[in-house]
C-alpha cells in the first residue's frame, strides 16, 4: 500500500503537468493542426481535384509517399515551436520562481515533455488518418500496411526531434534563440556536415544526421525500398554518393539513441540550472 502511495505521489505531479501543458498549448495545437491539414490537402487532394487531367499516382503506396513527404518538415517546425520554450522560458520569463518550488524539476520536464509530445503526435496522427482516408477513397482499397510502418517511424522521429530541441532549450537563454538554432541545425547544419563527410568518404553513411534519418518516413513508402539506399556517380577516380535512406533498423536505433541521450542531457542541464 505504501509503495502504491509513493508511486501515486511520484506520478501525480507529472500527470497534472501533462494536463496543464495540454491546456496551455491548446491554441498552438489548433493552429498547427489546421496548417498541416491544409498543406496535406494542397499536396494530396487539390492537384487531382482541381487540375483537370492530372492523373493519380499508379499505386496507393506512391500516393502515400507524396503525401508524407512534407511531414518531417511539419514535425521539425512543430517540435521547435512546442518544445523550444519547454525549459528556457521558465528562466527567461521567470515563471520558474513560482513553479520550481512546487515541483521537482525532473517531474516538471517529464510532464512538459509528454504533454507537448501528445500534442505533436496527435497532429501527425490526424495527418496520417486524413491521408489514409484519402488513399482509401481514391484507390478503393484498404490502407497499405507500409503507411502504418511509416507512422511508427514518424513516432520515433518525433521523440528524437523533441528531445533534440529540449536540449537546446536547456542550454540557450531564450525561446527565439532556441527556435533559430534548432531550425538552422536541423535544416542546414546536418545537411552541410553529411555532404562534407560523404565527399570525404562516400561509404560513410550519415546516420548521425536526423535530417537523413527523417528520409525513412517517406522512403518506406517507396516501391523500391529497401533495395536502393543511395545513388552514385563515378568519374575517373572520383565517386560521389548520395545517401537516400537508412534501413528501418538503423533508423530506429539512431532515433532511440538521440531520444534517450538528448532527454537525459536536457534533464541534467535543467537540474543544474539556477534561476
Amino acid at each position, binding site marked *: 500500500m505504501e509503495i502504491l502511495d509513493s508511486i501515486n*505521489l511520484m506520478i*501525480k*505531479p507529472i500527470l*497534472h*503537468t501533462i494536463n*496543464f501543458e495540454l*491546456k*496551455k498549448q491548446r491554441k498552438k495545437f489548433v493552429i498547427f493542426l489546421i496548417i498541416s491539414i491544409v498543406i496535406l490537402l494542397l499536396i494530396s487532394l487539390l492537384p487531382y481535384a482541381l487540375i483537370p487531367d492530372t492523373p493519380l499516382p499508379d499505386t496507393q503506396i506512391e500516393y502515400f509517399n507524396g503525401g508524407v513527404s512534407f511531414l518531417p518538415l511539419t514535425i521539425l517546425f512543430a517540435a521547435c515551436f512546442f518544445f523550444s520554450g519547454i525549459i528556457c522560458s521558465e528562466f527567461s*520569463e*521567470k*515563471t*520558474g*520562481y*513560482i513553479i*520550481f*518550488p*512546487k*515541483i*521537482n524539476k525532473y517531474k516538471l520536464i517529464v510532464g512538459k515533455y509528454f504533454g507537448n509530445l501528445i500534442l505533436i503526435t496527435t497532429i501527425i496522427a490526424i495527418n496520417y488518418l486524413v491521408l489514409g482516408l484519402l488513399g482509401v477513397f481514391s484507390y478503393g482499397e484498404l490502407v497499405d500496411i507500409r503507411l502504418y510502418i511509416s507512422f511508427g517511424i514518424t513516432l520515433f522521429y518525433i521523440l528524437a526531434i523533441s528531445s533534440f530541441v529540449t536540449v537546446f532549450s536547456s542550454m540557450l537563454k531564450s525561446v527565439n534563440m532556441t527556435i533559430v538554432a534548432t531550425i538552422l541545425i536541423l535544416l542546414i547544419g546536418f545537411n552541410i556536415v553529411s555532404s562534407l563527410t560523404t565527399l570525404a568518404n562516400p561509404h560513410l553513411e550519415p546516420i548521425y544526421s536526423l535530417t537523413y534519418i527523417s528520409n525513412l518516413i517517406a522512403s518506406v513508402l517507396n516501391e523500391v525500398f529497401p533495395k536502393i539506399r543511395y545513388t552514385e556517380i563515378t568519374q575517373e577516380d572520383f565517386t560521389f554518393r548520395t545517401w537516400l535512406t537508412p534501413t528501418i533498423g538503423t533508423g530506429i536505433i539512431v532515433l532511440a539513441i538521440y531520444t534517450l541521450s538528448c532527454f537525459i542531457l536536457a534533464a541534467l542541464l535543467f537540474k543544474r540550472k*539556477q*534561476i
Partner: protein
Amino acid sequence: MSSIVIKLENLTKKFRNLTAVNNVNLEVHKGETVGLVGPNGAGKTTTIKLIAKLLRPTSGRILINTNHGVLQDLSEISRTITQMGFLIDIPAFYDMTAYQLLKFYAKLQNYPKDKIDNRINELLDLFKLLEWKNEKVKTFSKGMRQKLGIIQAIIHEPEIIILDEPQTGLDPKARINIRKYIRELQKQGKTIFVASHMLYEISEVCDKIALINYGSIIAFDTIDNLEIGLKTKELNCQLLDPIPLGNLGFLVDKLIEKLEPFLDQNLDPNISKIPVIYNAKNQGIKIFYDGTKNSRGQILKTLVKEFESDFTVISFTQPKTSQLERIYSQLITENNTQIKTNKRR
C-alpha cells in the same frame, strides 16, 4: 520555546567574485513572523531563493522542519516540501486564466481535490479578484499579479510562508488587506518570513527583524530589543490646536527646560540639533528622550500638568516606523563604516 522551523547555518552564496550571502546564521521559530530588511542588493532575495532551492548554497546549509517534524538538511530532501509557500520576486505566470493557474498550483501541492475550488474562490474573493477568475493573467495589472502571487503562495495552506516584497505594486487598500491577512495567518500559528524595503509594513506585522547588509546579518532581534542599542528614542505628541507662532519660541524653551532630566543628552546632531521640535504642519511635538519607560511616563505627566494652559495633548506615541528607520539607518551606516575600515586595513 517553540520549535525551530527554518535554520540557516553559515549560509554563503557566491557569484564568482561577489558574495551575495555571507555566512548567514538565522533561526526562525514556529509561529514567528520574521522580517528580512536591507538595502538593495543586500542579499534578501538571494537568501529567499536559497531557501526555495532555486539556488544552491556555496557553503553552509539550510535546515527545514519537514512534514515529519524533524529538522532536515534542505539539500538532502529530494521531494518538494508542501508545507512551504513562496512568493519570490515580481511574480510571472504562464498565459492562462487565474483559475487554471491556481488549480494547477494547488494540485501540485497535493491540496485536497474536493477543496480546491472553494479555496480558490475564497482567496480570489479576499483579494478582490473573484470577477477576474476566468480572465487570462496577461490582462492583469501589476498589482493584480502581485495579489495572485500571494494567493499562489498560500493556496495550499502552508505552515511556512516566505514572501519577497509582497507589497510591491499594491495600492494602499490592498496593502492594508495584506497586512490584515498576514495577521490572520499569524493567529493561525503560521510561520512567516517576509523580505521587504517597506519598514512600516515590516514593523506592523513582524515579531523579529533581521537586518541584512552586504550579504551579512548585522542584527536579528525584536524591534524593542534592537531599540535598546539605539542612542536616541523618539516620542510624538499630537496636539488638539496649533501653537500660536508668537508663543512658539517661549514654549519650546519651556518644554526643554521642564523635560530636561528626561531628554537625550547625547542627541546625534545628524538627527536633530535640539531635543524638542514643533511641527506646525501636523500640530505635533517630537521629543527625543533617554529611552527609559520611567522617563516616558514623566514626560507625559509633565506635558499634561505643566502645559495644561498651553496646549492639549490628544495622542502620545512612540512611532515604531521611525524607530525602525533609525535603527536601520544607524546599523547599516555602522556596518558600512566597519566594512570600509576593514577594507583599508
